[in-house]
C-alpha cells in the first residue's frame, strides 16, 4: 500500500485531478477522516483502535447518542443482584482524552453515501473517507401481535442499553407472593443468543431468595436455544419446579399480547403475568437501514474486512452485520472492530493489513458461582465467516470449574470494557 500511495503522489503532477478525486485528504495533506456511528461494543473499540494505532494520522469522530453506555452484557447480573447498575455504566472520556477521538453526543439521522457525509440530528454534518456503522439493533414492533413501543414500561424488553433493566428489576421485586413471571424470548437471529435464558436464571435467583413460591414461564418462539442442556440442568438443580420452558410446538405461537391486562395469549392457554419481559424480533439499527447497506433486516459484509457488500467505504460491525456463524455478541463486535480498524488504517495510511481473525466467548451465570461458557474462533472464508474451532462447557463439570468459569467472566468484563473505553 505504501508504494501504491507514493506512486500516486509521484504521478500527481500530471494526474492531479484524478489523484485529488481518488485520495482527496491525502492529496491535500489533510488527515483522512473516519466517522464511527455507535459507541458500543463495536463502535467504541473501532474508534479506539483506529485512533490509537494510527497515532494521530487519522481523524476519528465517534457519533454516539448517549453520554453513558450501560452494557447489556452483565445487565442480567444486575437483575440477579450480582452487580450494581452503576458498575455497568461507562463514559467516553478515555476515548477523547487518551486517544484523541472527537466524541459527538448526537443522533445520526442519515448518511449521504455519495457525498460521504453523516447528517446529525441537530443539523450538523460529519464528513468521512471511511464510515464505521455499529448501531446495534432496533426492535421490530410488528413482530408480536399487540406489541407496541408503549408497552415498554409494562413489559420491559430491556434488550437495549439503558434504564429498561432497572424497571424490569423493580417489577420482579414487586411481584406478589407466588406470582408468575413470563419471559418471551425473541426469534432468531437476535442479539445475545444465551441472553434470555441467563435472564431467566437471574430472575429465578432473585425470586428464590425473596419469593420462592413464584413461577417463571418461558414462551419461546424457538424449538431450541443456546446452551439449552446446560441451562435446563442448572434450573433443575438450583430452582427445581420454578421454571417452565414451553416450546412453540406446545404453545402453538403467540396470538396476542395485552399489556394492560398483562395477558399473553397462545393456542395452549392465556397466560396472566404479574411481571413480564417481552423481547420482540430485531433488525439492524435504523441508521444502517437509512444508509442503504442492509439486505432485508441485516447488513451483509465481506468476511475479510467487515466492509458492507453494498458500499466499500462503509464497515458494518456487531449486531447489525450478517457475520454468519458468529453470534451477535459484545465479544464478536469487539473482535470484528479490530479487523476493520486494521483494514481502515491500511486503506488510509498504507499501514500493514493482516489477515482477519475473529473470536467469541459468551459466559452465562446460572446461579451463584455456577458459570457456563461457549466459544469459537473464526476466519474469513470467501463468502462467509467460518468456524475454525469451538468449545462449550460440559454437563458434568465440578463446582470448582463452574466457579472458576464465573470468576473468569468477571475478568472478561473488566478486560473488554477497558479495551473499549480506555
Amino acid at each position: 500500500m505504501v508504494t501504491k500511495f507514493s506512486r500516486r503522489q509521484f504521478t500527481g503532477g500530471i494526474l492531479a485531478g484524478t489523484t485529488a478525486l481518488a485520495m482527496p485528504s491525502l492529496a491535500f495533506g489533510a488527515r483522512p477522516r473516519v466517522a464511527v456511528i455507535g459507541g458500543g461494543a463495536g463502535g467504541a473499540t473501532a474508534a479506539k483502535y483506529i485512533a490509537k494505532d494510527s497515532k494521530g494520522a487519522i481523524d476519528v469522530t465517534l457519533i454516539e447518542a448517549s453520554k453513558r453506555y450501560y452494557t447489556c452484557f452483565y445487565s442480567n447480573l444486575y437483575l440477579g443482584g450480582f452487580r450494581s447498575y452503576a458498575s455497568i455504566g461507562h463514559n467516553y472520556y478515555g476515548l477523547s482524552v487518551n486517544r484523541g477521538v472527537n466524541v459527538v453526543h448526537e443522533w445520526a439521522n442519515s448518511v449521504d453515501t455519495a457525498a460521504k457525509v453523516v447528517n446529525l440530528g441537530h443539523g450538523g454534518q460529519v464528513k468521512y473517507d471511511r464510515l464505521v456503522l455499529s448501531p446495534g439493533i432496533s426492535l421490530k414492533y410488528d413482530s408480536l401481535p399487540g406489541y407496541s413501543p408503549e408497552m415498554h414500561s409494562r413489559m420491559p424488553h430491556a434488550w437495549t442499553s439503558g434504564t429498561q433493566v432497572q424497571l424490569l428489576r423493580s417489577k420482579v421485586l414487586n411481584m406478589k407472593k407466588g406470582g408468575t413471571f413470563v419471559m418471551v424470548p425473541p426469534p432468531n437471529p437476535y442479539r445475545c443468543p444465551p441472553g434470555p435464558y441467563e435472564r431467566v436464571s437471574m430472575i429465578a435467583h432473585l425470586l428464590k431468595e425473596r419469593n420462592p413460591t413464584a413461577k417463571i414461564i418461558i414462551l419461546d418462539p424457538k424449538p431450541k436455544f443456546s446452551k439449552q442442556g446446560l441451562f435446563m440442568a442448572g434450573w433443575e438443580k438450583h430452582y427445581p419446579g420454578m421454571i417452565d420452558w414451553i416450546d412453540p410446538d406446545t404453545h402453538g405461537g403467540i396470538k396476542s399480547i395485552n399489556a394492560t391486562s398483562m395477558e399473553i395469549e397462545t393456542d395452549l392457554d392465556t397466560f396472566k403475568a404479574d411481571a413480564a419481559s417481552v423481547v420482540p424480533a430485531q433488525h439492524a439499527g435504523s441508521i444502517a437501514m437509512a444508509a442503504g447497506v442492509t439486505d432485508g433486516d441485516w447488513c451483509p459484509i465481506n468476511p475479510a474486512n467487515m466492509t458492507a457488500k453494498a458500499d466499500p467505504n462503509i464497515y458494518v460491525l456487531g449486531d447489525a452485520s450478517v457475520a454468519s456463524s458468529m453470534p451477535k455478541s459484545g465479544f464478536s463486535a469487539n473482535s470484528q472492530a479490530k479487523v476493520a480498524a486494521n483494514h481502515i488504517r491500511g486503506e488510509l495510511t498504507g499501514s500493514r493489513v493482516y489477515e482477519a481473525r475473529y473470536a467469541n466467548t459468551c459466559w452465562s451465570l446460572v446461579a451463584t458461582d455456577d458459570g457456563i461458557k461457549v466459544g469459537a474462533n473464526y476466519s474469513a472464508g470467501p463468502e462467509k465467516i467460518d468456524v475454525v474451532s469451538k468449545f462449550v462447557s460440559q454437563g458434568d463439570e465440578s463446582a470448582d470449574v463452574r466457579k472458576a468459569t464465573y470468576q473468569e467472566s468477571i475478568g472478561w468484563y473488566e478486560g473488554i470494557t477497558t479495551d473499549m473505553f480506555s
Partner: protein
Amino acid sequence: MRNLWTVFFFATILCLSHARADNLLDGADLGYGEYLSGECVTCHSKDGVDKGIPVINGLDAEVFASIMHAYKTGDMDHPVMMMVASRLDAEQIASLAVYFAAMPGTN
C-alpha cells in the same frame, strides 16, 4: 568426579533450554504481535488488572511462549486458551510473546 558430572549435567540443560528459548522466539514480529494481541486483550485487561483473568502484560517472553505451546499441545488445559493457542503457529506465538513482554506490567 561426581561434581564435574553435575556441572556438565546442568550446563547441558542450560544449553538445551537456551537453544529451545531461542527457537521459541524465532520469527517474532512486534507489529504483528500488536495486531494479534487484539484477541487477547478482550479478556486479559490491558491495564494490567486481574479481576479473574491473569495479567499477561510484562510476562517474560520465553515463559509466555512456553505457556502458549503447552496449551497448543494440551499439556496445559483450559478450553478457551486451548482454542486460542490451537490456531497460533510458532511465529505468531513468538510475536505475541515479545509484544506482551514489552507491555507495562501489573498496576
